[in-house]
C-alpha cells in the first residue's frame, strides 16, 4: 500500500499517506493536529463561560446552553485535547528516546488515533443535533440518566469510542518500552519522559476499563431500560460516582505525569546538568501513580460515605504530597549549580514550578476532609484543578512543543512570539484562577450559570474574565507562531539545544526509519555521555543492515468510521428502531475490517542496506 501511495502525487497523495500511515511520527502529527483543534474548541467554550460570568445575572448564554458549554469544555479539554496532545508527544518522542524504529503495534497506533478522532467528532456532532450533553463532564447520575434529548447519549458513545483508542495507545507504549529498547538502554537509563510515558500507560491500562464499564451502565440505562441508577428499581446512583472517579482520579495523573517527564527533560537540558536524584524521581513517579488509585473517594467527601472512609481517603490523598514534593525539590536541585538558558521552552517550565506548587498546595488543603466540606464543588475546586491542569499539563504541553518542535517538524518556533504568548498566557492564567480560590469560599459554587447581584462576587468574576481573555490572546499568538514558523521558521539542526537524550542524535525531522543503526547506549543521557567522553555521536549497536518496516493500512480509518456509524445507530435507535440498521452496518464494517486484518498476512517490507547508504550520500 505504501508503494501505491508513493506513486500518487500531490495533495491527494499527502492525505492518503496520512490516512494510511502507521509511522509513529506521522501519527504524532495527527494527534497534535486533532488535539490542537479540540484544544482551540475547548478554549472557545471557556471564553463563552467566562463572558457569561463577566457580570451578575448575565444573559449572554441561556441556562441550558451554559450547562452544555461547561460539560463540553471539561470533556473536550480532558479527553479530546490534553490527552491526545500528550499521547501525540509520547508517540513522537518516546520511541526516539529508547532508540526504537517504531512502536510495537504500528497498526494499533493508527487505529487508536482514528478512534479518538471519530469519537471526538461524534461527541461534537451533538452541538448540531439537538444539543450537547449538559450533565457536567462528570455526568453524575441520575441527572445524566434523566437529561432529556440525546446530549448525554453523544457523551457516552463519543467517550466510549475515543476511550478505546486511548486504551490501545496505553498498551502499545507499554509493550514498546518493554521489548524495544536499544541495547544498553536499561530501565534505569531511560529518560524521565519515557519513564512517565511508561507509568502513564500503566495508569491508562488500569483506569480506563472502569470508565468503560461506567459508560456501558449509563448507556444501558439510557438506551435499553436497565436499572443501574434507577432508584425506583433498586438502583444506586453512587455506583456511577465510584466508577467514574476510580477512573477519574488516575486520569489526573495520566495527564500530569507526562508533563512531569517533559519538565524533567527540559530543566536538565537547559541547565546543562543531569537530572538531580534520577532514581528518586523514577520512584516518586511510580509512587504517585500507585497512590493515585487509592484516593478516588476524595472527590466524594460530601457523598456521605461516613467518617472512616473520609478519614482514610483524606490521609491517602495527603500522602501524595510527599512524592510530589520530592519532585519539586529535585527539579530545583537540578537547576542549582547549573548554567541555565532561558528560552520559550524553559519559560514554560520555570513558570510551572511555582504555579504547580500552588496547585499542589491547594490539593493538600482539599484533602483535609472537613475543610473540603467548604471547598467541595465551589470555585475553590475549579481554581485548584485549573492550577494543576493548566499550570501543570498545559504548561507542560507548551514547553514540550517548543522543545521538540524542531524534532517534530525540523523548524524552530519563533522566540519573540513564544515569549509574548508565554507572558500573556501566564499572567492571564494567574489572573483568572487565583481569585477563584476566594470566590469559592465567598460562596460561589461551581457550574453556576449566573451569580446573583449583591453577593460580593462581582469583582472577582470580572477579574477572572479579564484574565481569561488574556489567556485567549496568548493562545492566539501561539497559533500565529505555528503558522509563521511553518512558512518562515528557521530550519533546525539535529541537535539545536545541545541535547542529552537519543532523540537529538538523529536528524530533525528524523528519517522514517528513525535510526539507521540502532544506537548503543552507555548510560543515562547517552548522547551527553558521547559528547563528553566519546566521539560526540552515537555508536551503532549493529552494522548497517536491512530495516524491516510495517505496511501502511487504511483499515484503522475505515474501522473507526464503522464505529462512528454504529455510534449514531445506538443513539437514535431509541427514537426509531430503523436506526438499528446503522448499528449493524457500522459494527459490520468494523468487524469486517478486523477480520481482514487477522486473515490477511502483513509481513511489512524491508529498506535495504543499499538504499540506506544511497540516502546518506
Amino acid at each position, binding site marked *: 500500500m505504501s508503494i501505491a501511495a508513493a506513486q500518487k502525487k500531490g495533495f491527494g497523495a499527502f492525505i492518503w499517506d496520512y490516512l494510511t500511515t502507521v509511522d509513529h511520527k506521522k501519527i504524532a502529527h495527527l494527534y497534535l493536529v486533532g488535539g490542537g483543534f479540540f484544544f482551540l474548541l475547548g478554549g472557545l467554550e471557556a471564553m463563552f463561560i467566562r463572558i457569561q460570568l463577566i457580570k451578575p445575572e448575565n444573559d449572554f448564554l*441561556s*441556562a*441550558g446552553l*451554559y*450547562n452544555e458549554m461547561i460539560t463540553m469544555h471539561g470533556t473536550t479539554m480532558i479527553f479530546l485535547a490534553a490527552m491526545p496532545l500528550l499521547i501525540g508527544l509520547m508517540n513522537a518522542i518516546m520511541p526516539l528516546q529508547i532508540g526504537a524504529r517504531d512502536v510495537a503495534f504500528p497498526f494499533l497506533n493508527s487505529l487508536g488515533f482514528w478512534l479518538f478522532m471519530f469519537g471526538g467528532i461524534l461527541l461534537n456532532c451533538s452541538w448540531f443535533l439537538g444539543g450537547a450533553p449538559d*450533565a*457536567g463532564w462528570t455526568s453524575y447520575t*441520575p*441527572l445524566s440518566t434523566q437529561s432529556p434529548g440525546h446530549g448525554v447519549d453523544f457523551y457516552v458513545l463519543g467517550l466510549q469510542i475515543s476511550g478505546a483508542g486511548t486504551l490501545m495507545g496505553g498498551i502499545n507504549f507499554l509493550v514498546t518500552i518493554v521489548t524495544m529498547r536499544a541495547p544498553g538502554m536499561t530501565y534505569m537509563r531511560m529518560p524521565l519522559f519515557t519513564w512517565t510515558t511508561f507509568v502513564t500507560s500503566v495508569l491508562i491500562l488500569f483506569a480506563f476499563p472502569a470508565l468503560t464499564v461506567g459508560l456501558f451502565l449509563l448507556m444501558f440505562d439510557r438506551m435499553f431500560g436497565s436499572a443501574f441508577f434507577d*432508584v425506583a428499581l433498586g438502583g444506586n*446512583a453512587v455506583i456511577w460516582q465510584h466508577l467514574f472517579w476510580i477512573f477519574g482520579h488516575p486520569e489526573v495523573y495520566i495527564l500530569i505525569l507526562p508533563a512531569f517527564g517533559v519538565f524533567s527533560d527540559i530543566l536538565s537540558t537547559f*541547565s*546543562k*546538568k*543531569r537530572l*538531580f*536524584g*534520577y532514581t528518586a524521581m523514577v520512584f516518586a513517579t511510580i509512587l504517585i501513580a500507585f497512590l493515585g488509585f487509592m484516593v478516588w473517594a476524595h472527590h466524594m467527601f*460530601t457523598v*456521605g460515605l461516613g*467518617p472512616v472512609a*473520609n*478519614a482514610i481517603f*483524606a*490521609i491517602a490523598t*495527603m*500522602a501524595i504530597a*510527599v512524592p510530589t514534593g520530592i519532585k*519539586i*525539590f*529535585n527539579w530545583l*536541585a537540578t*537547576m*542549582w*549549580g*547549573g*548554567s541555565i538558558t532561558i528560552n520559550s521552552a524553559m519559560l514554560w517550565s520555570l513558570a510551572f514550578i511555582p504555579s504547580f*506548587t*500552588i496547585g499542589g*498546595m491547594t490539593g*493538600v488543603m482539599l484533602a*483535609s*476532609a*472537613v*475543610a473540603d*466540606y*467548604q471547598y*467541595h*464543588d465551589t470555585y475553590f475546586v475549579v481554581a485548584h484543578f485549573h492550577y494543576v491542569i493548566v499550570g501543570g499539563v498545559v504548561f507542560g504541553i507548551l514547553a514540550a512543543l517548543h522543545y521538540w518542535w524542531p524534532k517534530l517538524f525540523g523548524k524552530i518556533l519563533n522566540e519573540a512570539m513564544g515569549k509574548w504568548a508565554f507572558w500573556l498566557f501566564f499572567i492571564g492564567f494567574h489572573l483568572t484562577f487565583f481569585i477563584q480560590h*476566594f470566590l469559592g*469560599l*465567598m*460562596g460561589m*459554587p461551581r*457550574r*453556576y*450559570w449566573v451569580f446573583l447581584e449583591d*453577593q*460580593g462576587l462581582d*469583582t472577582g468574576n470580572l477579574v477572572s474574565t479579564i484574565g481569561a481573555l488574556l489567556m485567549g490572546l496568548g493562545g492566539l499568538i501561539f497559533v500565529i507562531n505555528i503558522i509563521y514558523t511553518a512558512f518562515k521558521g528557521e530550519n533546525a539542526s539535529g541537535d539545536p539545544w545541545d541535547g542529552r537524550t537519543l532523540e537529538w542524535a538523529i536528524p530533525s525531522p528524523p528519517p522514517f526509519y528513525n535510526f539507521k543503526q540502532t544506537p548503543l547506549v552507555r548510560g543515562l543521557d547517552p548522547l551527553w555521555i558521547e559528547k563528553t567522553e566519546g566521539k560526540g555521536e552515537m555508536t551503532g549497536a549493529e552494522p548497517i543492515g536491512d530495516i524491516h518496516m510495517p505496511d501502511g493500512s487504511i483499515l484503522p480509518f475505515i474501522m473507526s468510521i464503522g464505529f462512528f456509524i454504529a455510534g449514531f445507530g445506538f443513539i437514535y435507535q431509541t427514537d426509531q428502531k430503523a436506526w438499528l440498521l446503522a448499528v449493524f452496518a457500522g459494527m459490520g464494517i468494523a468487524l469486517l475490517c478486523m477480520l481482514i486484518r487477522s486473515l490477511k498476512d502483513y509481513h511489512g517490507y524491508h529498506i535495504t542496506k543499499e538504499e540506506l547508504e544511497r540516502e546518506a550520500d
Partner: protein
Amino acid sequence: MKGWMGKVKSVFLLSLLALVLAGCGKENLTAFVPKGYGAESSMNLIILSSLIMLFVFIIVFLVYVITLVRFRKKKGQEDFVPKQVEGNKTLETVWTVIPIILVLVLAVPTVAATFDLADESGAKDGINIDVTGNQYWWHFSYAGEEIQTSQDLYIPTGEKVYLNMQSSDVIHSLWVPSISGKMDVSPENENTMYIEANEEGVYWGKCAELCGPSHSLMDFKVVAVSPEEYEQWVEEMKKVDPEAQPQDAVAQDGKAAFEENNCMSCHAIGSSPAAVGPNLTNFGDRSKIAGILEPTKENLVQWIRDPESIKPGNKMTGNYPELSEEEASNIAEYLLQLQPSEITPESAGN
C-alpha cells in the same frame, strides 16, 4: 497548641473580616466569616493547612528565585559545563521527611474533625428536620412538630439541629457556607448532618451539586433565631388554619383564584406533608420569592405568570392554566398575606 493556635486564629480571622468588609465576600454568605459550628471546624483546618502550605511555598519560592538569579547562564561563560551531580542522599532525605511531618500535622486534626462532625449521638433528643431537595427548591419538615416550610429553614441558635436529607429527583447538595460545610442530598438514601448557628441571623444557603438548568438559582435561607423565638415560631406555625379567609376582598379573590386554578394539587398550605411544590404556609414571611427574587408583589406576579423566565426548567411551568394579570395579582396579594408568625427573616436581622 491551643494557645498559640488561638492567637494565630484570631489574627487570621480579624484580617479576613477586614477583607470581607473591604468587599471580599458578603457576610452571612461567605465561608470566611464562620458563624456556626461546622463552618468553624472547617475554618480551623483551612487556616492550619494554609499556614503549612504557605510555609512550604515560601521555601520553594526562595530556593527558586535564588537558583534563577545565581545560576543563569552568564555572558562570557557560554562554554561552562556544570558539574554533573547525581543526587544527594542527605538532602533528598530531608525533603522527604519534612513533608511527611507536615502532612502528619495536618492529618491528625483532620481525622479528629471528621469524626467529630459525623458524631450524631445527640440526634435522638435534638431537633430533627427532614430536608427534601427538589429541582429547584428545598423543603423542610420539622419532625414531631407537624410543621412544613419551604425555602426558609428556621433553627434555634446555639443548638445542634439534625438534618435528615433526601432528594426527590437528582442529587443536590445543601450548603450554608457561613454555618456549615455541605452534604449531598441524594435520591437513594438519607444523608444526615447537623448544623449549629452561633448567632441570630439569616444565612444564605445554596445548592452545590449540578442539578439542571436552574442549579444556580436554587438558593434558600437559614433563619436562625433565639431558642425562645424558635418556640414561639413553632407555636404560631402550628396554629395556622389553612382554610382561614383573608381579611380584604382582593386577597379573598386571590384565594378563590388559587383554588380554582388547581394550585392546591401541588402546593399545600398548613401542615400537610405532601410536597409536589413548595409549601406556602408562611409565604408572606419568606425573605425571597422562589429563593432569589425580592418579595415584592410585582416580582410575585411575574413569577406566577411566567416562572420559566425566572427559573428555566422549573416544574411549575405549564402545570396550571394561563392566568390573567388580575388573577395573578390577586393570588399574589393572597399569598403575601400568609404571615402566620411574628418571627420572620426580617425580625431575625435580615
